[in-house]
């Protein structure tokens, strides 16, 4: 069994690592490309540059080679431009396979989908086998106490699962981490902890089944059937129910709304002009509002309008995020009975391949976009009056400044994402262990 697990871990691990490597290389190339294109652009009108846009690449998840999570379902790059007029541009989801994990092949899928089957194979006869061989009756006759018996069986199951199932896959995960992300050891430990918890829940539930069912083949059959149903029925059922219960706003409706807002950024209304004048006077008290303005009013109007657009957009994104969170929480809560589904949710949170992490990068880029566009408009407002002679040099300075990279996934996000699934996994471990203990106690006492 150890050999089979090792072979599978190598196959799944290398497949995941290959996909991650390609994704990582593309990210690096696109990041360099975006910076280069930004730095060599011609010194057009500042607002034309703002509209021309800037390509950014979404970084791959920290442990994407172990658990790609939602990475395949999200775009890989996007274009940032003034008023965000091109929200549809960017790499988009192409094809997702009809299979657990949406077609990805990595160690995360192995841990949550395949290895539980091996746990069932290893643990199913822990008690039922003793019964079949007749050793259980001997132990009962010898007056064995339930406490030591339960503790010994739990420890034995943990040791067998740990050595034969968990360890080979964990070693492959460690080797891949050493090769691809040597600074992610703490996260790897947490990720392996989550997976260990998932396997422990499976082991506890199988032990309870083994104590309840008299015959090892029947225990094996029921265990494997339970494994099949818990991995291919409960998680998708939970996800489907969550999908049916939530309705994110249609993208075309949002797109039309964004287009209307973007248009309002260029609408030169009297109200906006008055606000722009007040804004300029606040910064230039010596100007009485008559004659030539010390700043280009069009640019100030654009900056003010852009800020409003960005605020509206932020509110819209918050609304979308709330809807997504509702769906994710509902899916986690409904997959309570499935250790595989819970481990998948917790694992992707720790691997930084879940929704919260994707949103973190998006929020970072949106912040950068706002900052860049505001800076360009401010420069135009302050220097535009004297022509654009200095713009070329300024643009060079701006271009040579390093582009900020998205923050590395903070631990608090991983904790927030894996907290609920881990708690539920602990509950499942406790339920399985308690059921096993109670059944063992009943069996041993019954004999006495």
């Amino acid at each position: 069994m150890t050999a089979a697990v090792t072979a599978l871990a190598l196959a799944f691990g290398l497949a995941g690592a290959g996909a991650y490597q390609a994704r990582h290389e593309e990210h690096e190339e696109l990041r360099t490309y975006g910076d280069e294109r930004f730095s060599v652009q011609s010194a057009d009108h500042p607002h034309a540059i703002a509209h021309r846009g800037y390509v950014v690449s979404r970084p791959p998840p920290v442990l994407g080679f172990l658990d790609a999570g939602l990475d395949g379902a999200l775009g890989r790059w996007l274009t940032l431009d003034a008023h965000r007029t091109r929200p549809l541009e960017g790499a988009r989801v192409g094809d997702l396979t009809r299979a657990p994990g949406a077609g990805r092949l990595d160690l995360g899928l192995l841990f949550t989908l395949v290895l539980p089957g091996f746990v069932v194979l290893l643990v199913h006869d822990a008690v039922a086998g003793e019964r079949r061989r007749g050793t259980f009756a001997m132990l009962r006759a010898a007056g064995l106490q339930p406490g030591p018996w339960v503790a010994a069986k739990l420890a034995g199951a943990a040791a067998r699962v740990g050595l034969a199932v968990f360890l080979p896959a964990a070693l492959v995960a460690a080797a891949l981490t050493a090769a691809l992300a040597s600074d992610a050891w703490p996260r790897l430990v947490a990720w392996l902890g989550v997976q260990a918890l998932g396997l422990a829940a499976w082991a506890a539930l199988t032990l309870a089944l083994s104590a309840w069912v008299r015959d090892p083949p029947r225990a094996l059959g029921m265990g494997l059937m339970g494994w099949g149903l818990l991995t291919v029925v409960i998680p998708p059922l939970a996800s489907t129910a969550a999908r049916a219960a939530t309705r994110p706003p249609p993208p075309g409706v949002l797109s039309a709304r964004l287009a209307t807002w973007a248009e309002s950024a260029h609408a030169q209304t009297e109200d906006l002009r008055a606000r722009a004048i007040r804004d300029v006077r606040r910064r230039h008290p010596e100007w009485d509002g008559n004659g030539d303005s010390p700043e280009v009013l069009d640019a100030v109007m654009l900056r003010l309008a852009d800020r409003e657009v960005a605020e509206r957009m932020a509110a819209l994104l918050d609304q979308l995020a709330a809807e997504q969170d509702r769906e994710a929480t509902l899916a986690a809560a409904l997959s309570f009975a499935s250790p595989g589904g819970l481990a998948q949710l917790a694992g992707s949170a720790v691997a930084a391949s879940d929704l919260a992490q994707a949103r973190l990068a998006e929020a970072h880029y949106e912040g950068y976009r706002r900052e860049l566009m505001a800076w360009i408009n401010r420069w135009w407002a302050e220097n535009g009056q004297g022509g654009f002679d200095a713009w070329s040099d300024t643009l060079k300075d701006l271009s040579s400044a390093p582009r900020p990279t998205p923050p590395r996934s903070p631990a608090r996000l991983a904790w927030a994402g894996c907290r609920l699934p881990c708690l539920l996994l602990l509950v499942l471990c406790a339920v399985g262990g308690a059921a096993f203990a109670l059944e063992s106690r009943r069996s041993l006492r019954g004999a006495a």
Partner: protein
Amino acid sequence: MSAWGQLLRLETRRLLRSPRGRAVSAALFVATAAAGLLGARLAAAHVAAGQADLEAARARVEARMRGDAPLSPVETALWEDTVVARGVAPLAALTAQDLAALPDAAAVRLTHPPTALAARAERSPAAALLGTFDVAWLLSLVLPLAVLGLGYDALARDRARGNLAALLAFAPSAWGLVTARVGAVTVAALVGLGPGLAVALAATGALDGPLAATDALLVLLLAAAAALAFSAATVAVSAFSARPGTALVAGLVGWAVVALALPLGLAAFAQAAYPDPDPRPELDATQAAQSILTKDADRLVAEEARRRPELDPERAADGVQSVLRFERLRAAAHLRRVQGAGFERRRTQARRAELYRLVAYLSPTTWLSHGLAALADTDPEARQRFMAQAEAFQSQLALHVEAPLLDRGAAPGGWPRLTTPPDADRTPALLGAALYAALAGLATALAARRLDRGALTPAEEDA
């Protein structure tokens, strides 16, 4: 009634009256009906989303053409999105997972190739991580498990107990015994599955468009053929196993390989064979093409005018017409370049989808999901077909706005609108049913041959 008929009736009655048979049939009914009802709800949400997108874009187009500074039809078609909704076939309720990865609508402008709006999996990707429990998922992943639960001990139990030789002595033949047991397992599975599928098909009535009776019959035929094939395979595994436990484990390992590992491996193979091309050349070309819209493009417009002399700005009746013709030709030049820039990506995606469709036939469980997806117009190539329909609509839109430019008067009817009709392909379902029938025949023959040869070998208890 013939001896075989009596045997089949006895076997079926025995299985249906057993607690296991009742539990599996009931579970299949509940699961299929639930998957159908949930799928119908999801499909209805996709229909609503596509129509909402279409109406929102239409309202915006109308507002732009009527506002304080109204745009001409050409300008509106150039700078505003006209949305095409993807038609959702009633049977898409059975393949709701595919819908999550497909766009509900596409935005069309004359300056750019049509752009797919974000699919559900992109907007709220939790569903992608855990899968979707629809009828196709149930039939391809859960039905084999259910059938295995019904029939793993069909022959192994008799072999282990040493009854097989006696049983064969009374049966018409080994073939007759095997087919009767395969038939019993299939009937027991269909007792739950059939009514469940009927509920699922009835639930599609809540969606737009009638469900064609032929399509409904094809779904039932495909499901029945799949149940038969899975039953025959299960009985064959049972015939080759010495004990029921061995049969169960072998069946489950086979299920894991065929239903889980093969589809995943084949998808990975298709992805590896046709990886996404380097996006940089496309980005470069798109960026370069952008300058056509923002800078002087006299030379390019002259080139376009040679291709379409009827739109030559110099032949316009007045200055406004001339400017609008110039803009139209400029947009055509831009569109040509952007289309060229994205050609490699589109070709790769199309080839990948085609390869996946072909290699997926190596996994028997995907015969079913692909057959259903082709009937529901949600197969791997549905995205490409929809984008091609959107491109055709783009030409229609261009003709609509060009009519006034060519002094042909306003085009009849309002602003063009399109909800693309679903494009059902019945061939994969028929092919799948035929393949399942062949698989069932092969598995049954193997099991009968095994019984002929090995029925009298000593059982474990004999030894």
